[in-house]
């Protein structure tokens, strides 16, 4: 013990006592400092929050140095340069700093905040570095009264300056040089404390982050399950070797299976055994190549029915490109397939070809039926250029113009044109189309439409046109015929009443022949029917009674419309004449009609003989009337034959010798 080792002569002296007292004071001081350091160390060791640790350091520093105030300022670098933020304060109320701006990197403070070392001053106001910075040039008014000044930087292990410890006292010369050493230690302690707290905080942050990430993962797994079970598709996950490790709920619902039954490779039982080998082969190929799998195949539902599913399986790869799992989706396309089949059926039934044109690339796609409309087989290539080339050269310009207009304006494309098939046959096609997709510039990007072979319709239209034209011709000719009848009847009639009777009777005869022709669709009329039509009403003669009309004809003859009309009028004139003046005007007269076809030289001819007998005596008329002219000139001329009227006293005889060529329908 050093005290015990003092010289004995000093033991009872005043000086000794004084020294002892001083030593005791010093000891007490040391003890106090040691206690303070212990408390600081204990506080740091306890860890806890940063504020508490820093406060313990500052409090301990005030105690160690005997300062009136102590503070820790935090180093804060903002866009206005370095500034220091008060963190902890001891020996004064925090409000003592509230009205001042935070200290800046002035000449006084800078060495501390740059971590250059301890600043100690017995009277800071006398320091050459003091009061050199605007605007206060010293402590601002109302600042804590500081004369003795002691400041130490707090540097982290990384070398970063965390802040500074500052101590002050209103009296000068309060801080001894020895305190610099203590403060250096205290600064280091504070740095360790702050570092530790920060480490703790970082560790806690990391733990928190990890906890949150894990929670998020659980969350995302829950979300995935929710989505996977809610979407209408069946989906599943397989290991790189193809073993399925997970199915969504829809899979189990649709197939009616349990995980035990289908996980792994059990899913094969849901497949159609006929298709399964192909599915397995292609799935194995994808597993081997790592290429996505795509196929439509049937899957059996709980009701035992197979429905088509569009299936796509995509591999998921890690950062090295290794496949870590396969993700598969099966989409039920039964409805789409049914719709498509219905549409195809309708197109087939309607003989409608369908086509699509990419306006920009001129890529053209035609269905089999569409190709057939242009004389192409289903397996033949048929491009847009081929299409244009197939169109009849007279219609091609119209077609290209129509399609360009539809593309430019988005208007409907609707056109009928002729096509020349590869075999040289010409057909009519009706093509319709519309914009299937609009381009950015407002025109058409894609067109789609249908095509129909309308050759039959076109032929029918042509037939109808000809028929109408023919009908018009027939009507006009009939009107001219009626005009002729009227004019000639009028010329011969002695008075109005007789004119009317004769005209009406001729008009009726013409009309009745038309009726016969209409019954046969104007293809022709029977000779027997025409004779019967004119003669049957008069068969009993003017007085009625038994038939006095006989027909001797081996077989009937079919007459063309022109010959039917001409012969109908001729027979009408003969019958009218017989009734008025001839055989049928008397009670016993007879009319015999003989018709026969003879082969003369190169042609067949009809010989028709009208013979009257038993009537009044007949004399040749002085002037040829309408009937005579019609028979001898008109009928002979129109039918290119000969007609002879013989006025035999026993009865009128009319002989017609007509070429069959002029009588029979064309056919």
């Amino acid at each position, binding site marked *: 013990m050093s005290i015990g080792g003092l010289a004995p002569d000093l033991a009872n002296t005043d000086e000794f006592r004084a020294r002892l007292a001083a030593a005791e004071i010093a000891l007490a001081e040391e003890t106090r400092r040691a206690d303070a350091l212990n408390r600081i160390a204990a506080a740091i060791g306890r860890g806890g929050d940063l504020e508490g640790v820093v406060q313990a350091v500052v409090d301990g520093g005030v105690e160690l140095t005997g300062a009136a105030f102590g503070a820790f300022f935090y180093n804060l670098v903002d866009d206005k340069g370095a500034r220091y933020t008060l963190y902890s304060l001891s020996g004064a109320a925090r409000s003592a700093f509230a009205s001042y701006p935070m200290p800046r990197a002035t000449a006084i403070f800078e060495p501390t905040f740059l971590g250059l070392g301890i600043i100690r001053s017995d009277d800071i106001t006398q320091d050459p570095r003091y009061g050199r910075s605007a605007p206060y040039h010293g402590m601002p008014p109302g600042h804590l009264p500081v004369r003795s000044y002691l400041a130490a930087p707090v540097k982290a292990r990384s070398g970063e300056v965390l802040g500074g410890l500052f101590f002050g006292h209103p009296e000068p010369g309060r801080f001894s040089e020895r305190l610099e050493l203590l403060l250096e230690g205290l600064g280091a302690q504070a740095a360790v404390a702050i570092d530790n707290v920060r480490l703790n905080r970082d560790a806690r942050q990391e733990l928190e982050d990890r906890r949150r990430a894990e929670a998020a993962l659980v969350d995302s797994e829950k979300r995935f399950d929710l989505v996977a079970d809610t979407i209408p598709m069946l989906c599943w996950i397989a290991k790189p070797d193809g073993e399925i490790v997970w199915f969504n709920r829809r899979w189990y619902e649709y197939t009616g299976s349990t995980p035990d039954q289908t996980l792994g490779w059990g899913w094969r039982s849901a497949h159609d055994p006929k298709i399964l080998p192909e599915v397995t082969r292609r799935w194995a190929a994808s597993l081997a190549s790592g290429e996505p799998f795509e196929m439509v195949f049937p899957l059996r539902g709980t009701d035992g029915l197979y429905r088509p599913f569009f299936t796509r399986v995509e591999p998921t790869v890690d950062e090295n490109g290794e496949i870590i799992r396969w993700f598969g989706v099966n989409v039920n396309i039964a409805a789409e397939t049914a719709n498509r089949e219905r549409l195809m059926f309708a197109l087939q039934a309607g003989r409608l070809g369908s086509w699509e044109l990419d306006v920009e690339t001129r890529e053209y796609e035609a269905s089999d039926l569409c190709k057939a409309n242009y004389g192409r087989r289903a397996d033949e290539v048929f491009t847009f250029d081929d299409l244009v080339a197939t169109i009849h050269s007279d219609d091609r310009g119209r077609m290209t113009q129509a399609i360009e207009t539809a593309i430019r304006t988005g208007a409907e494309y609707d056109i009928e044109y002729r096509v020349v098939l590869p075999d040289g046959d010409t057909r009519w096609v009706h093509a319709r189309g519309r914009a299937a997709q609009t381009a950015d510039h407002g025109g058409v990007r894609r067109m789609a439409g249908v095509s129909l072979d309308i050759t039959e319709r076109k032929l029918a239209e042509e037939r109808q046109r000809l028929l109408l034209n023919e009908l018009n011709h027939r009507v006009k*000719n009939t*009107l*001219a015929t009626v*005009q002729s009848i009227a*004019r000639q009847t009028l010329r011969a009639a002695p008075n109005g009443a007789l004119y009317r009777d004769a005209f009406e009777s001729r008009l009726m005869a013409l009309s009745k022949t038309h009726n016969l022709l209409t019954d046969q669709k104007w293809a022709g009329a029977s000779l027997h029917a025409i004779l019967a039509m004119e003669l049957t009403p008069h068969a009993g003669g003017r007085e009625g009674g038994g038939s006095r009309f006989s027909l001797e004809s081996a077989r009937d003859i079919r007459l063309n419309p*022109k010959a039917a009309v001409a012969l109908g009028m001729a027979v009408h004139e003969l019958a009218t004449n017989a009734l008025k003046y001839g055989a049928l005007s008397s009670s016993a007269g007879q009319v015999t009609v003989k018709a026969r076809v003879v082969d003369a030289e190169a042609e067949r001819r009809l010989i028709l003989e009208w013979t009257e007998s038993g009537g009044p005596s007949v004399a040749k008329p002085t002037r040829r009337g309408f009937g005579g002219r019609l028979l001898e000139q*008109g009928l002979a*001329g*129109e039918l*290119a034959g000969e007609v002879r009227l013989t006025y035999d006293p026993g009865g009128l005889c009319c002989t017609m010798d007509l070429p069959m060529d002029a009588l029979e329908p064309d056919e």
Partner: protein
Amino acid sequence: MSESGALQGLRVLVVEDEMMVSMLIEDMLGDLGCTVVGPASRLDEAIELASRTELDCAVLDVNLGGQPIFPLADILRAKGAPFAFATGYGDAGLREVDRGSPVLQKPFREGDLARVLGELKAALV
């Protein structure tokens, strides 16, 4: 008829295959004082008439039982004999070369025939 004097003696070939219409034209021509050449109802007959008979002009049916009248039209044109068509078809059935000839739409009035014959006669001079 005011024109009857003007058309007096005009020799008109009539080609028409409908007997009643043929008789009608014949009557009208007679009323107009014209001399009827024919009438003919068939093409060969008409061509023969045209080649061996003196005629000034002609009234032709466009279609003779399905046979077009055009060969005769060409012969008449070559002979310098003007002609008119009488038709129930409109002028749809005419060739481009025949479009200049007058057309009588059946049925027509005697006055229409007289006017057309006047045109044909004027073309003769």
